[in-house]
């Protein structure tokens, strides 16, 4: 009885505890922010209140939405390209063991080099503007997606593959009906990591050489001593990243909790 009760109480209590923790963390962050503001002064970082009032006004202007749209367009293209390319390459390299073993250390090496140094090359190839930002986002995001997908395919239970062979499925059919559903949970984790890195790539691209986008606004704010703009845009980017990551995490959890749920659906 008491066990049943506590089992009933637990899930009801947990979200409230989580919300309480969230409020505490928010208060601590705001206090730290205010503290840094008091220490460094008005010319370095705007106070939380000033930033939020600035944001409330700036979010209503078309200027913000123009820059936001530029970032989102580049980010959208980059995410679409790195997801499709990453998943396809990951599946192929996972199925073809030899190619996968050859490629894995090369990919791991590419993953850990500071890709920022490659940005001038990207700029020389694609020119200033949208396509350079997209390409830079893609080279950040595609590698983790390939690695996660490839490892997921390698870890698929051999029974599933033998079943596919017993049923004489062709390779495209095997990939579509057996492999893809089986690797879905890990693939979503890979997509989440790739998503974050793509955002990072696009924003670095905007910060280094661009005339549009949120990254440009952040650097431009510093150059023009418009501290509120810089602080406000940083808050906007953080909010966007956290919301997007939260959505992907909940997706991740849903597929992670019911292993095989994907394959049953297929």
């Amino acid at each position, binding site marked *: 009885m008491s066990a049943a009760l506590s089992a009933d109480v637990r899930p009801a209590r947990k979200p409230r505890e989580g919300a309480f923790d969230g409020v505490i963390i928010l208060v601590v962050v705001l206090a730290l922010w205010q503290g840094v503001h008091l220490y460094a002064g008005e010319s370095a970082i705007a106070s939380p209140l000033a930033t939020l009032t600035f944001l409330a006004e700036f979010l209503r202007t078309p200027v913000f939405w123009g820059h936001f749209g530029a970032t989102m367009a580049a980010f959208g293209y980059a995410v679409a390209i790195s997801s499709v390319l990453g998943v396809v390459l990951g599946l192929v390299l996972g199925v073809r063991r030899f190619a996968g073993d050859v490629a894995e250390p090369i990919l791991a090496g590419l993953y850990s080099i500071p890709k*920022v140094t490659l940005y001038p090359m990207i700029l*020389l190839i694609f020119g200033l503007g949208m396509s350079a930002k997209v390409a830079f986002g893609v080279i950040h995001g595609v590698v983790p997606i390939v690695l996660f997908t490839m490892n997921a395919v390698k870890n698929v239970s051999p029974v599933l593959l033998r079943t596919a062979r017993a049923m004489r499925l062709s390779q495209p059919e095997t990939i579509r009906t057996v492999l893809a559903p089986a690797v879905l949970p890990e693939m979503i984790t890979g997509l989440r990591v790739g998503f974050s890195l793509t955002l990072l790539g696009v924003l670095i691209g905007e910060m280094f050489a661009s005339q549009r986008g949120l990254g440009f606004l952040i650097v431009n704010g510093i150059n023009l001593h418009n501290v509120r703009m810089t602080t406000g845009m940083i808050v906007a980017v953080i909010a966007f990243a956290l919301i997007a990551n939260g959505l992907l995490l909940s997706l991740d959890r849903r597929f992670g909790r019911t292993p095989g749920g994907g394959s049953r659906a297929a």
Partner: protein
Amino acid sequence: MTRNRAIVLARIGVVAGAVVLVEVLCRLGVINPLTLVAPSRMVFDLAGILASGDINRDIAYTATTIATALVLSVVLGIVLGVAVHALPRVRRALDPLLASYYSVPSFIFYPLFVAIFGLNTFPLIVLGMAFAVPAMMMSTMAGLDRIPRVLLKTARVHRLNRWETATRIVLPSATPYLFTGLKLAIAYAFIGVIAGEFIMASAGLGHSIAFAYEGFDNHTMYALMLFVLVVVTVMNMSLHAWEGRLMRRRIRA
């Protein structure tokens, strides 16, 4: 064994083939020299730059910054990891924060750091740490989580004191995780510092690359890019080899 050798040979073949392909395309003029310099030329330019010593100050500057950021990150990461591990209530509260930490592109803070600390090495070190500390911290906590209960009980049976338990039980069993953390911290410190130098700085390798780009000095730019990539790759590979040796020794023991 023969399969392993075939894999290694194929890997070398792929990398060498890619380099040769780029070289040929550059020499034939298919790739514009204003876009990409031939790989052999990059090596030649790099040798010239290194021999002239023009870049030594920037190399020293970047290396010192990265080393400082790395040492501080590892120490702070381990200390924070141990502290948070000891306080389960705090850990539960921090969990969502840590889980989403790396989804926020930390580079966006760099202009703020520059505004707060001034345009010197300090904001670079802080940026490197912002990247590396959470990785080290999470690896430390993962390592502490996975110490087998039996070993801790054994320590109690042998009446080891805290220090002995820490050095003889905790440290050896957490080492693989600490190593993973160290590897990440090194990669992140490099990325953070060089990216920071790239966006806004007055010295350093990243700054020199950006400076060469802005001056249309492709030869210097590609030579320095090659230098950074070679240094990072060699370091990653030696760390990987060292880790493999540690693992093998553990298995034998």
